[in-house]
């Protein structure tokens, strides 16, 4: 009967949906670039280059429309070692999230470095883009690896 226990009943509940993200012209070009294995940053009015590109300057809200190639190499500005990746995360082995400043870009962007082990990571190290076999135009087409 109901007096048996006071604990709440629980059950698994999964929220699952595949969203359709429309990109707009600037991000459309950026992701098309990734599909073609090219990384593009956005040029701001002062000449500096934002990576990842944004349609609107984060500080001034000015519209941005010029994209310029950056990378594929860059410098790790910061990193966090993920020793036990979750199922959603891009690699199923330990890896680093890193803030990578690509050559030609003035801002660092958050991405993944597949370094094998933590001791291979260091702030200031150089990394380079590794493309997945079939680039489809998504941010996950890329992974970074320590530069040889």
């Amino acid at each position, binding site marked *: 009967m109901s007096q048996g226990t006071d604990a709440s*009943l629980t*059950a*698994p*509940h999964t*929220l699952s*949906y595949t*969203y*359709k*993200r*429309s*990109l*707009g*012209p600037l*991000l459309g070009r950026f992701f098309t670039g990734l599909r073609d294995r090219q990384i593009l940053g956005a040029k701001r009015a002062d000449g500096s280059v934002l990576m990842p590109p*944004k*349609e*609107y*300057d*984060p*500080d*001034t*809200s000015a*519209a941005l429309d010029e994209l310029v190639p950056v990378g594929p190499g860059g410098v790790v500005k910061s990193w966090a070692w993920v020793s036990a990746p979750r199922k959603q995360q891009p690699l199923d082995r330990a890896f680093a999230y890193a803030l990578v400043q690509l050559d030609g870009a003035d801002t660092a962007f958050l991405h993944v470095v597949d370094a094998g082990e933590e001791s291979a990571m260091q702030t200031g190290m150089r990394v380079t883009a590794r493309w997945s076999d079939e680039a489809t135009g998504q941010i996950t087409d890329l992974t970074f690896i320590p530069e040889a």
Partner: protein
Amino acid sequence: MAELTGVIGIGQTKYAAKRDELSMPGLLREAAERALEDAELTWKDIDAVVIGKAPDMFEGVMMPELFLVDAIGGAYKPMLRVHTAGSVGGSTAIVAASLVQSGVHDRVLTVAFEKQSESNATWALSIALPFSVATVAGAGGYFAPLVRGYIRRSGAPEDTGIRVAVKDREHALKNPLAHLHLEDISFEKVANSPMLWDPIRYLETCPSSDGACAMIFANEKLADRSDKPVAWVHATEMKSEPTMFSGRDQVMPRAILDNAKSLYKKAGIQNPREEIDCAEIYVPFSWFEPMWMEGMLFAPTNEGWKMTYEGATKLGGDLPVNCSGGVLSSNPIGASGMIRFAEAALQVRGMAGEHQVEGAKKALGHAYGGGSQYFSTCIVCSEKP
């Protein structure tokens, strides 16, 4: 005590099933830029930003305002995110107005949006939870039994809803931003459209739209500088009640009646039908026009349908309702309430274009949400109180 506040800028996107040529920031931006242009201001002139939208699951971003804020001039400024179910667009505008009315800020930009093409609203609204049986198919499934309740108690003729649908879709033809432009709309066409949630037919329901709406509120001193007409905020009101309790009148909730009384009192309105020139009412299913005519005290109990029948709510009638085409013609859910407020303001500014009500001076904006339990309303006027 409150500072006198006016609407000095309004911007709306074109509403459509899919604005897939735009990102989310691009969508907000289209509305916000138009509002800035209307107000003849730049991003720097804005003191604070208020963002509104319906559930985050529609776009699959948790608190999307956090990544959107800088696209609409909000970097290093105060930003608030409002969510009060379907009434959110109205509530968001009220929060923005309050920031000026309180004297906290001089000029505030508010944007409400929904990008429904990123997902499926019926999915997000009917997420099946464990232990329960999902029987309510989206908003239509929820509201259809209440519409049946209204028909039963009012004795309204069964074609009342059809007449509302025809009228709002005809109005939409005069609004270039409206999502639905059904050139060949007719009584027969609506009557013969499929029943979805009996007694609600396909053409008596709102579409699912992408879109954003923006408004700029300013205090009296700054609004007086505007070269364009200003819509002065005479009163705003919000009322909520629980979704269910024993004896709750879901068809004609006390929250809307209380909201109407309080709003009119604040605005100094004795006879709303006489004094208000036009209204933008949240009507997602056609039958809610007669229902809310009663709820907003334009008609006696059980007689709201007569206004529809007599043509009072048509452009040219004595209380034109939803001259923009209303929610029945454009429904980016999170923005739909703000569009009502913005369209009311456009009317009293004389800037509604082809769907302008001639000589409109005083207008009502209305939004509702949840299980007919959240209400937000405003009275705007071409003249100061």
